[in-house]
């Protein structure tokens, strides 16, 4: 009899809790009503999925989303159409540039004045005094490591890439792991980004002052490449095919002890099913590392935000703004799971332990990824030409020379340099 009661009681309790949480979850959203359709395009990672899900809670008209890692390939043509296929693009400080260059996004000052009540000032991305995007999260690459493995070799978490190398050497020498380092070194965009990190860490500047002329063929460039080569010696031999997803899979499988990983991905690294207990227990994060005795971390700061397309009607722009505001509503910050997904810039966010790395990056004076019109071209040129060096097919100097030549050919075509 007692058992029966307790079962009934616990079922009742479960239902009540469920009901209460449900009503809390809906509390912030029930007001969102829109009267024109909304279509969102953006990258695909947990935080962005939450934003899109929040926008979709609006009623009155349809809210569609297309979240894919290939968002940069489709947002430009989609927004060039008139009317635009996407009324909002979720972008970062790199991917907003092509949309700006082609004049495809709408200034948001009027909509912010009308509907932007809860936005904080640092969420407003302003260019020449006009609000062009609303940022909702910050991101950076930083150290992710296995505390248990580091303990075994008696090492503290590395503060510099040189320390990372010496710890990796010890781990290999002790036979704990053959390839203890990982990272997003896939040839193309990822590899180029790792170069950018290291290059800035060595004090490099991508362009000559006030011009679109490249400046990577320099001492800092050579040093950055040599460090990347040294690190790759401790990576899985397939490293040139590993993007963030593959690097994370290696970490989850327990094959990796040290990696430089995106904050937005590190937070949810061990929350998937099937990760071994020692990996879950050993999981730890720290700020980004410096290199070559520099004081600025070898990393870059990023923000993610959303924009509203220029080629849509005013009614649709307004509906999009309202829906996207609902996607970044402060009420979301009550949800523990959403809170861990990113370093949110949203009002009411209290940092979780997962945010440590990104905060450390911001405090250490990490340089934001350059938001300039020709950075994308240089990034692409880096992605095309770096893999030869990483495979030992050519010298660092030759690789850097090729990068500049490739960039110059592309920049001439685009009319960036004469």
């Amino acid at each position: 009899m007692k058992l029966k009661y307790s079962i009934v009681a616990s079922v009742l309790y479960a239902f009540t809790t469920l009901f209460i949480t449900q009503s809390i979850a809906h509390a912030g959203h029930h007001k969102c009503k829109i009267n024109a359709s909304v279509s969102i395009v953006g990258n695909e990672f947990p935080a962005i999925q939450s934003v899109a899900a929040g926008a979709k809670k609006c009623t009155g008209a349809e809210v569609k989303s297309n979240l894919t890692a290939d968002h940069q390939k489709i947002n430009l043509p989609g927004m060039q159409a008139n009317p635009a296929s996407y009324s909002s693009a979720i972008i970062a400080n790199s991917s907003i540039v092509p949309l700006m260059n082609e004049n495809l996004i709408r200034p948001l000052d009027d909509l912010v004045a009308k509907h932007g009540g809860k936005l904080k000032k640092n969420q407003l991305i302003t260019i020449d005094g006009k609000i062009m995007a609303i940022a909702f999260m910050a991101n950076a690459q930083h150290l992710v490591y296995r505390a248990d493995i580091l303990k075994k070799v008696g090492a503290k978490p590395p503060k510099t890439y040189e320390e990372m190398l010496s710890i990796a050497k010890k781990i290999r020498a002790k036979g704990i792991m053959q390839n203890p380092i990982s990272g997003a070194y896939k040839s193309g965009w990822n590899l180029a980004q790792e170069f950018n990190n290291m290059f800035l860490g060595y004090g490099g500047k991508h362009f000559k002052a006030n011009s679109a002329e490249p400046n990577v063929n320099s001492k800092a460039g050579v040093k950055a490449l040599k460090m990347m080569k040294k690190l790759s010696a401790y990576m899985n031999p397939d490293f040139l095919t590993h993007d963030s997803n593959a690097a994370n899979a290696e970490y989850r499988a327990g094959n990796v002890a040290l990696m430089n990983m995106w904050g937005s991905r590190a937070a949810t690294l061990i929350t998937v099913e099937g990760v071994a207990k020692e990996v879950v227990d050993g999981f730890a994060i720290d700020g980004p590392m410096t290199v070559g005795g520099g004081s600025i971390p070898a990393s870059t700061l990023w923000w993610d935000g959303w924009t509203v397309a220029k080629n849509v009607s005013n009614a649709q722009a307004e509906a999009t703004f309202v829906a996207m505001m609902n996607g970044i509503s402060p009420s979301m910050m009550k949800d523990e799971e959403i809170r861990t997904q990113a370093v949110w810039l949203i009002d009411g966010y209290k940092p979780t332990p997962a945010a440590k790395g990104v905060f450390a990056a911001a405090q250490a004076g990490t340089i934001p990824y350059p938001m300039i019109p020709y950075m994308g071209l240089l990034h692409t040129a880096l992605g095309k030409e770096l893999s030869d060096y990483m495979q030992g097919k050519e010298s660092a100097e030759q690789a850097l020379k090729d990068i500049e030549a490739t960039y110059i050919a592309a920049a001439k075509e685009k009319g960036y340099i004469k």
Partner: protein
Amino acid sequence: MKHRSFFWFFLPTALAMLLFIAFPIVSVVTQSLFTPHEAVFTTVEKCDPFGCTKESVVDQEASQALKKSNPLGRFAGLDIYFDRGHLATKEVAEAWQTRKSMGDFFSTLNNLPFYRAMGFTLTYTFLVTPLLIILGLMIALSVNSLHRHLKGLAIFFSLLPLIVTPLVGSLILFWMVDSRGILGTFLQWLAGDPDLSLKASTTLTWIMLIVYGVWHAAPFAFVVFYAGLQTLPKDQLESAQIDGANRWQRLRYVIVPHLMPLVTFVALIQLMDNFRVFEPIVGFNSEAHATSLSWIIFNDLNGETLQLSAASTTSVITIIGVAILLSPVLVQTWKNFKDKK
């Protein structure tokens, strides 16, 4: 057929060809001759969560004015064709003049994106095409000699590689040859080298892509040849047998000549297809080791850069390449046609 009825029969096809083949080619050629206007930059203040800086942006008003006055962009003529991303005439000439040896010249050439892509594309085309024809013929002959109850099943399984989407097929193999995958681990065990990685070696990657290409396209050749084998004249084969021709001689002097027009057909289609090799490069993530013209086009159209002129130029070069590649076969077909007349 009367000319009049022929015209009405052909009209829909002609219109479709005009719309879907001729116009796009005209558009691509035009785009390859023009480049965007020179960008006008201004320095403005940019503020984001990390603070404010003064940086350059594209001056929209000035750019719009330029675009309006000349919507096609700057006329570049053949400049893009000859730049470093394409034929790289200047770089090739320089490499030729400063060469220390032929090997040195070729390694400089291999450092230029267009020639590197051509190197792989041509190797791939000229190895995969004959190999798949031979393999397809072998499968067709063996299936044809099977008992009729087994034929249906054998045909179904032989066709599987063709049914699998190229991207999916290459992805499955990509995971299998990973250094932690089933094939990758087997190769490491076979070679006794735990660091052996198929994906890290250019030679092995090329071999893998070529084997994949043959595996994927052989069923196409098989189907065509198998259909051809059904029309094989029995009396001719029997008389050859009576004349004392052995199995090999019958194949060499009766069957293969009978199938020759089909071989030409398969070669034509496959040369064209293989020259545009693309999916396996993406599927195998092999751009560090092997690129093709189609892959260059894909990469130029990457969202952050969108080099339309460069991509159009590579497209035009691809069309010219296919035309050159097919010309011997086409000339041969034309000659045969005239002889028959």
